[in-house]
């Protein structure tokens, strides 16, 4: 038995509203991606210059810095998981969380204790629902991360890294985030943040780039001391910007398919509605015809 006309009409109206909503969210996400990409581009020069400078110091001085020193027996590993604050982004958060779980598993197999740091409400919800301990979490600006936020995270992580392991410090730090490959492809990815491997990453200078002999003021150690924390912050910022662009791209795609699904549903409901209406009309006509012929038969019989 098909639903009544009124019911179908109501359902169609509600699906139309949902479609308008998802369409609006799709457009908003699309316009924000452009902004996110511009932000990522604007942050490029700083990251590039910083990388050049750090490489220069590392190449032309024999300085051992705590942030670049590999610890002999790593026992505790921090994992910074970058997720989104809001849902409606398809499998974005689920994917990056799954990648994080995989890394946690791997670290545990190496007999390392995992110390989770989280950015984004989705990840926090995942961890608190499972009643896991969080070292620290940040949320509120996953789709437009500021450099100040990246600095805050960097300071916290560097602090943990420089604390001796027995006093609650960590021996290495990993970041799990989503790399923005293109509008169509975003891949969850893991990088090791600390101890630093200086010449690596997307902004590393090309091999034929000649690094000149530098003068350091006041000294190579001091320059490195000031540079490395900034470099760490810049890398975290880079990861957060990539994650933000990925989140928006995922949201746009999820909302696009939601809009398409709503459209399909509307078409189906329209057809059901037409069919129900037609059935009703047919029934009314046959009732009238039936009634009329019954009347005709009755009057013919009486004559």
């Amino acid at each position, binding site marked *: 038995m098909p639903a009544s006309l009124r019911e179908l009409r109501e359902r169609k109206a509600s699906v139309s509203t949902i479609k308008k909503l998802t369409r609006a969210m799709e457009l908003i996400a699309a316009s924000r991606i452009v902004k996110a990409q511009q932000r990522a581009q604007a942050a490029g020069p700083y990251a590039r210059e910083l990388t050049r400078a750090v490489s220069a110091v590392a190449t032309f001085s024999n300085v051992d810095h705590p942030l670049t020193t590999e610890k002999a027996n790593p026992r505790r590993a921090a994992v910074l998981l970058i997720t989104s604050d809001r849902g409606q982004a398809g499998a974005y958060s689920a994917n990056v969380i799954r990648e994080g779980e995989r890394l946690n598993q791997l670290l545990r197999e190496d007999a390392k204790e995992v110390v989770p740091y989280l950015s984004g409400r989705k990840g926090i919800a995942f961890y608190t629902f499972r009643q896991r301990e969080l070292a620290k979490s940040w949320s509120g600006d996953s789709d437009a991360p*500021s450099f100040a936020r990246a600095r805050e995270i960097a300071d916290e992580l560097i602090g943990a890294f420089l604390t001796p392991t027995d006093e609650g410090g960590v021996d290495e730090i990993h970041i799990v985030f989503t790399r923005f490959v293109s509008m169509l492809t975003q891949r969850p990815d893991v990088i090791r943040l600390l101890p630093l491997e200086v010449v690596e990453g997307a902004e590393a200078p090309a091999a034929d780039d000649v690094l000149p002999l*530098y003068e350091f003021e006041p000294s190579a150690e001091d320059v490195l001391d000031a540079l490395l924390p900034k470099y760490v912050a810049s890398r975290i910022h880079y990861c957060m910007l990539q994650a933000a662009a990925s989140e928006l791209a995922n949201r746009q795609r999820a909302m696009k398919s939601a809009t398409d699904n709503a459209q399909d549903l509307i078409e189906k409901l329209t057809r059901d509605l037409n069919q129900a209406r037609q059935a009703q009309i047919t029934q009314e006509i046959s009732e009238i015809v039936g009634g009329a012929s019954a009347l005709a038969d009755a009057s013919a019989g009486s004559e």
Partner: protein
Amino acid sequence: MSVSDTASAKHLEVALVAAERTVWQGQAKIVIARTTDGDVGILPGHAPLLGLLQGGTVQVRTVDDEYFVAAAPDGFISVAGDRVSILAENAEMGHDIDLEEARRDLERAQATGIDTDAGEEELRLAEARVRAAEKAG
């Protein structure tokens, strides 16, 4: 070609870069920055240098003989092959800073004190902004 010839023919490619944007980019005749070891004037042909800025201001004279001051608190300067990069998280052009507002910020930072790292950093930032705004004005 003599040294003076190369110097006069060349100019510096200067980039003043903040964490989230490039504040200024262009060609300059001279850049004067104060590092922890004192003022350095950088002319074309300068030896490669990496220095930490102190006091937070950088003066630049462009090829068009324009002169400006920028605030670059806690930044550093990198010179390599006539490319000068001044990096500071909160770099700003001196003439973009509202002097009155910067002074108020400075007073507030001084009132908060320098007990914490954050307070100290805020004070340095405020000082650099006031200095840059004063020089620019």
